[in-house]
């Protein structure tokens, strides 16, 4: 047998992930590793991939670039992982890319966990694969949706006062959306002290439709304060901050969400009729008892699922090269929980490129309007927003890579 690739042994393949497990930035995200492991374990119980188990090594970077880098180096040099999997955070990923430079080392960076569009740039990041639709895409699409459904209404926007927000603003601008009230908040400031301020502003501005384009905690505080102030506009929640499970867990009365518009690329975590949600939530419940099945878990497990297919597609003796080649060649056709298409190809590192819209039920669950998913797709550039006819292929048997 020829020399095996780094991180690949006869019995297992190692992946490495850096993610904030502690510290203020860790909220919610610290469930992702558990989710990935949950799926990997399930997969391994069912024979793994070509007889090899998939293993995840997790490092806590506390959301600090300096640590993200040293942890990444540990993963590469000490733990000898085959590829980096879903490293989290825009600035951390930029730091890793430019300092550790996996590109030059030929180490795959699969499915970076950020909506920053830049990582799809193949020249700059030759081994990096994005997966989340970019914030710009989301804003463009949401813009189109608003035009279509809420034309002429007075619009309000809550957004994060950093790149996440500025991408959003750029996207809405492209979509030609004008907001009557724009409320920025400093990332990390969302809380009891600030939320009432947002709402009074939106109220004073007389917003009829309010877009919550922040993180989940921001949505939570905005919604609960709005309830307290009897402010009930038409809510539209972005995918980042629209996770029904988390919102409800945080004690926001379900009633408030009723009829709010939500968007996502994955099925709603509360939609148990969805085959993926059903399977994943079962697996997760067994693996991490007592922990709620929320969006982060959903995305985490989905990422693991896609990774497994990539490994499978990379052949009997997968190498870093063959792994990336496999994604380039077959990535677009990988099965996934996503309700929008994947766009991997030899020339594209873009993962999901669209969203579907639905409404929150009286129970506070995000459901497609009268049962069918309305999916829009676009790109991070000047491209138009198109209603997609994409139909998600059925889930392979037992949710294992075929």
């Amino acid at each position: 047998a020829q020399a095996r690739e780094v991180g690949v042994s006869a019995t297992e393949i190692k992946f490495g992930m850096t993610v904030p497990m502690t510290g203020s930035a860790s909220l919610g995200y610290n469930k992702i590793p558990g989710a990935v492991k949950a799926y990997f374990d399930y997969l391994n119980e069912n024979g793994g991939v070509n007889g090899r188990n998939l293993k995840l090594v997790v490092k806590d970077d506390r959301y600090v670039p300096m640590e993200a880098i040293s942890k990444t180096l540990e993963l590469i040099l000490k733990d000898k992982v085959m590829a980096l999997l879903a490293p989290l955070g825009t600035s951390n990923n930029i730091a890793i890319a430019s300092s550790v430079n996996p590109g030059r080392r030929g180490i795959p960076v699969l499915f970076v966990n950020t909506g920053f569009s830049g990582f799809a740039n193949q020249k700059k990041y030759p081994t990096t694969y994005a997966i989340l639709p970019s914030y710009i895409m989301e804003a463009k699409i949401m813009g189109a949706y608003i035009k279509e459904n809420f034309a002429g209404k007075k619009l309000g926007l809550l957004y994060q006062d950093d790149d996440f927000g500025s991408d959003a603003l750029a996207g809405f601008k492209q979509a030609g959306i004008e907001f009557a009230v724009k409320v920025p908040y400093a990332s990390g400031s969302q809380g009891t002290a600030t939320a009432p301020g947002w709402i009074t502003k939106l109220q004073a501005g007389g917003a009829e439709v309010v877009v919550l384009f922040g993180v989940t905690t921001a949505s939570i505080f905005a919604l609960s304060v709005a309830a307290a102030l009897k402010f009930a506009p038409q809510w539209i929640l972005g995918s980042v901050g629209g996770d029904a499970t988390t919102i409800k867990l945080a004690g926001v009365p379900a009633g408030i969400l009723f009829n709010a518009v939500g968007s996502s690329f994955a099925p709603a975590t509360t939609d148990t009729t969805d085959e993926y949600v059903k399977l994943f939530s079962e697996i997760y419940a067994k693996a991490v008892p007592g922990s709620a099945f929320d969006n982060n878990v959903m995305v985490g497990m989905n990422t693991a699922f896609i990774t497994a297919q990539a490994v499978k597609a990379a052949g009997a003796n997968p190498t870093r090269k063959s792994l990336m080649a496999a994604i380039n060649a077959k990535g677009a056709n990988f099965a996934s929980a996503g309700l929008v298409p994947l766009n991997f190809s030899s020339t594209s590192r873009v993962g999901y490129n669209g969203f579907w819209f639905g409404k929150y039920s009286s129970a506070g669950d995000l459901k497609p309007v009268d049962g069918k998913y309305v999916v829009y797709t676009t790109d991070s550039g000047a491209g138009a927003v198109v209603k997609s006819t994409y139909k998600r292929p059925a889930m392979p048997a037992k949710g294992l890579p075929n």
Partner: protein
Amino acid sequence: MHKVKSSSHLRTFIFIGFILFLISNRVDELRVYQGIQVAVYVVGISSLILLTGYSGQVSLGHGALLAIGGYSAAVAKNIYQIPTPLTFVVAVLITAFAGAILGIAAARLSGPYLAGTTLTLAIAIPSIANQFKVFGGEQGLLFDVGFPPLSLGEDFTQYKWFFWIAAACALISTWFVKNILGSRYGRTWRAIRSNDVAAELSGISIARSKILAFTISAGVAGLAGALLAMSISTVSPSAFPLALSFSLLTGAVLSGLSTLSGVIIGSVILVAIPELADVVAHRIGSSEAVVTNLPGFMVSALLILTILLAPNGPVEQMRAHKAHKAHKT
């Protein structure tokens, strides 16, 4: 305290440099990178020892000064295309200037009031990056020192290059700081700390000395910031969290506030502990919750133990211990 024969110091420092050079050729890239981190901490901590240990001004926000240094370097390089070596100088100068201004305010503040101000500074400074576009927002700015000169050979890695730069800077700045602390300036600061009226009666201008201390300390911190930026090739708000300021203070205490000799110890511990803690945690860690939180727990515990058992740092502790032994016999 301890007299300074700077000439012999110079030799020691050159010797250390040579050792480091040899080491850097033996160890793997990870260790080299950690070497860079150590160097960054050495510079940062020595700056803090000068300010807090000698001139008695407690700074809870030294990370902010590092941030200023890092951003100055990055802006100087990206926007004004200043040649790389100069960017470090720029970082030092600009941060020193900022330090001088801070020092003017600080000179009027006592203990907790200064601590409070510096703390808020550490919270505020990084978030400024999102207010002005030049600082590149959350993604921050790239700071690319460039590849090692080819003359050093093909297999000469980026990090080894960074390490050489960082180590050189660290050695030089530590040598400067050591000399200054050993000179009448260091003596003056200690005098003020122990009795300001008496110091003033001896012809010392308290405000001026304190501001001077803040300026020098800031300059050194600026260098640390630039080096940090180099090591991660970027600057971004999240690179200078409040935790960084606390780590530096921790490192200063682990090194021993009253002398520079222990600075390397503190820095190494800062870098080594998280990794060790990780290993230990995975050894004994049963549940997920334990594995993720044990490292933090151990670092904090170590901190408290040090302050309980060796409040003046290992070096002083050994010195005291020796003295004690000598006394017994």
